[in-house]
C-alpha cells in the first residue's frame, strides 16, 4: 500500500483529496488528510462579516462532511516534516509516513511581527483586522460603535492571501459610512507599502481612480515599522505617522511554523516550489499547493482551484514514473467588491497583467473585467454556494484552467507617441 499524505484541509487540500480519491485505487493508495481544526471556514466570507452581510455560522461547516469517503482524516497539530525519513511528525508524537506529500496549510496573519499589533490592548485602542473569523466579529462590533473620525485601512506587506481584500474593505467601508450617515464625519485613508493602489499598472490606475472618485486618500510607499497605541498612529520606517481612530490592518502573512522548522520555506515560511509543477525544491516526493507555496501569483482560492486541476494530472503521471507534462500558468480570477452592490473582476496569470474587457462565462454571460457591475457582485455572492457544493467536492466548474485572452483588451500603444525617445549615449533621468 502506498501513501498520499495531505497536510491541511482548507481549499486546496480538500479539493486535492476529493479529486484524487476516485482516481487512485483504494487497494493501492491510502489517502490521509491532516488538519488541526474540525471546522472548514469559507475565508472569502470574512470580508463581509464586519458589515453584517454574513453571520459567522453562514461561513463555517464541519470539516468531516466535506471530505470524500475513503479518505482517512486525522486531527492534530503538525510539528515537523522529516524528508529524509519520509515521515510527518505531529505534536502528540504520532508519526505519519508518506510516499507522496502535499503541503496545503496555507498562510496566516502574523501580527507578532509588527510591534503594537499583537499587544493585548490593541483592540481597545482601535486596532482591528478581519483576517480571522474571531477578528472579523470583533471588527463588526467596533464598527457598530464607530461614530466618525479617522478610518485607516492598511496592509503591512506583501504577499498576503486575497491581496484585493484590503481594497474591498476600503470600498465597502466607504459605502457603509454613507449608508449610516457617517461619511461626512469620517476621513478614509488607504495606507500601503506599494507605490499605488495595486501592484500591476493597469489595475493600479483603475483602482486608484476609484479611490479618488470616493474621496479615499491614498498613502503609498508606507513601510509600517510599528503601531503607536498611545498616540493611535501608524509609524513607518522613514518616520512618517498616520493617525487613526479606527485602524483596519492586514498583518504580515506567513506560512505554518512547521514549514520553517522543517527547512522547506523561504523567509516567510512559504514552501519553495517549481511554479509550474509545485514540486518542492530539492525533493521528488513533496509538493505544496495553494497559499502555502511561494508561487509568484496571487494567494487566492481561485489560484488553488486552477492549480489543483494541473496538479492532479501531474501527480498521476509522477507516481506512474512518467514526466509531469501539465504546466501551471499562474491563472488567478478575483472579484473585487466595490460597494453599493457592485464589483469588478480581475483575470490574469504569470505573464499577463489584469486587463480591461469582458470575461465570457458559459450559462451566465459576459462579466466586465476591471470595471464595476452588479453582475460581478452577484457572481461574488453566488460563489459561496459554488464553493461548498461544486468546488470543494471537486466537481467541474465551467472555467478554463489556463487563462484565456478571449474578451481581453490590450492597451494600445500609440505609434505617434511624442514622448521624448531616449537619446543614445546618455543615461536618462529616472524618477523614483
Amino acid at each position: 500500500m502506498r501513501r498520499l499524505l495531505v497536510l491541511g484541509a482548507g481549499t486546496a487540500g480538500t479539493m486535492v483529496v476529493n479529486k484524487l480519491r476516485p482516481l487512485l485505487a483504494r487497494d493501492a493508495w491510502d489517502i490521509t488528510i491532516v488538519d488541526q481544526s474540525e471546522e472548514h471556514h469559507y475565508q472569502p466570507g470574512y470580508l463581509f462579516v464586519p458589515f453584517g452581510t454574513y453571520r459567522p455560522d453562514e461561513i463555517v461547516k464541519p470539516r468531516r462532511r466535506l471530505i470524500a469517503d475513503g479518505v482517512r482524516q486525522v486531527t492534530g497539530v503538525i510539528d515537523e516534516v522529516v524528508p529524509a525519513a519520509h515521515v510527518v511528525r505531529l505534536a502528540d508524537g504520532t508519526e505519519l509516513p508518506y510516499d507522496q506529500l502535499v503541503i496545503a496549510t496555507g498562510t496566516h496573519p502574523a501580527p507578532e511581527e509588527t510591534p503594537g499589533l499583537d499587544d493585548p490592548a490593541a483592540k481597545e485602542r482601535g486596532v482591528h483586522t478581519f483576517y480571522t473569523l474571531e477578528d472579523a466579529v470583533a471588527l463588526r462590533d467596533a464598527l457598530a460603535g464607530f461614530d466618525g473620525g479617522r478610518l485607516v485601512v492598511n496592509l503591512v506587506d506583501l504577499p498576503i492571501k486575497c491581496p484585493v481584500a484590503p481594497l474591498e474593505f476600503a470600498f465597502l467601508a466607504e459605502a457603509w459610512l454613507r449608508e449610516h450617515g457617517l461619511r461626512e464625519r469620517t476621513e478614509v485613508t488607504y495606507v500601503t507599502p506599494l507605490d499605488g493602489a495595486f501592484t500591476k499598472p493597469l489595475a493600479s490606475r483603475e483602482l486608484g481612480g476609484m479611490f479618488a472618485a470616493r474621496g479615499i486618500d491614498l498613502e503609498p510607499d508606507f513601510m509600517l515599522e510599528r503601531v503607536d497605541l498611545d498616540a493611535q498612529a501608524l509609524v513607518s520606517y522613514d518616520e512618517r505617522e498616520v493617525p487613526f481612530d479606527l485602524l483596519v490592518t492586514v498583518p504580515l502573512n506567513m506560512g505554518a511554523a512547521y514549514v520553517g522548522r522543517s527547512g522547506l520555506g523561504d523567509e516567510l515560511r512559504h514552501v519553495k516550489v517549481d511554479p509550474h509543477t509545485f514540486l518542492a525544491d530539492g525533493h521528488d516526493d513533496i509538493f505544496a499547493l495553494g497559499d502555502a507555496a511561494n508561487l509568484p501569483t496571487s494567494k487566492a482560492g481561485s489560484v488553488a482551484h486552477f492549480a489543483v486541476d494541473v496538479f492532479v494530472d501531474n501527480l498521476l503521471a509522477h507516481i506512474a514514473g512518467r514526466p509531469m507534462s501539465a504546466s501551471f500558468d499562474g491563472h488567478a480570477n478575483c472579484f473585487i467588491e466595490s460597494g453599493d452592490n457592485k464589483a469588478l473582476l480581475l483575470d490574469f496569470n504569470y505573464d499577463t497583467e489584469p486587463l480591461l474587457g469582458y470575461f465570457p462565462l458559459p450559462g451566465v454571460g459576459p462579466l466586465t473585467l476591471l470595471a464595476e457591475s452588479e453582475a460581478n457582485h452577484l457572481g461574488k455572492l453566488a460563489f459561496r454556494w459554488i464553493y461548498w457544493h461544486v468546488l470543494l467536492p471537486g466537481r467541474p466548474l465551467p472555467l478554463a484552467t489556463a487563462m484565456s485572452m478571449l474578451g481581453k483588451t490590450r492597451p494600445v500603444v500609440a505609434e505617434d507617441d511624442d514622448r521624448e525617445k531616449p537619446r543614445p549615449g546618455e543615461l536618462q533621468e529616472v524618477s523614483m
Partner: protein
Amino acid sequence: MPVATIDGREIHLDDEGFLTDPSEWDEALATRLATNIGIELTDRHLEVIRWARADADEQGETPTLRRLQNVGGFPTKELFQLFPKKPAKKLSYVAGLQKPVGCV
C-alpha cells in the same frame, strides 16, 4: 527597450531605466546609476548591493526588504537611510537587478 552607452559600453535598460541584464553591471556603473538618483555611494551601500546581487543570483529574484533584514542582516531602518523613501526600488536600480515584484 532603450540602450544607453556609458563609458563606451552599451547598457540595456527597461522602460523605467532598470538594467535588463545583470551581467552588464559593475561597481563603476553602480556609482553612475546612484548619482542619477541623487545617492552618493558609500562602502555600506556597496555591502548591501553585493549581498543583494549574490542573493538574487542564488534565488533567481531580487530580495525584498524583509529578506534583506531577516536573512541579510541589514535593518530596514538603515536601508531607508541609505536609499531614502523607496529603498527596495532604489537598491535594485543601483544594483542592476530587476525591480522587486510585488506579488499580486
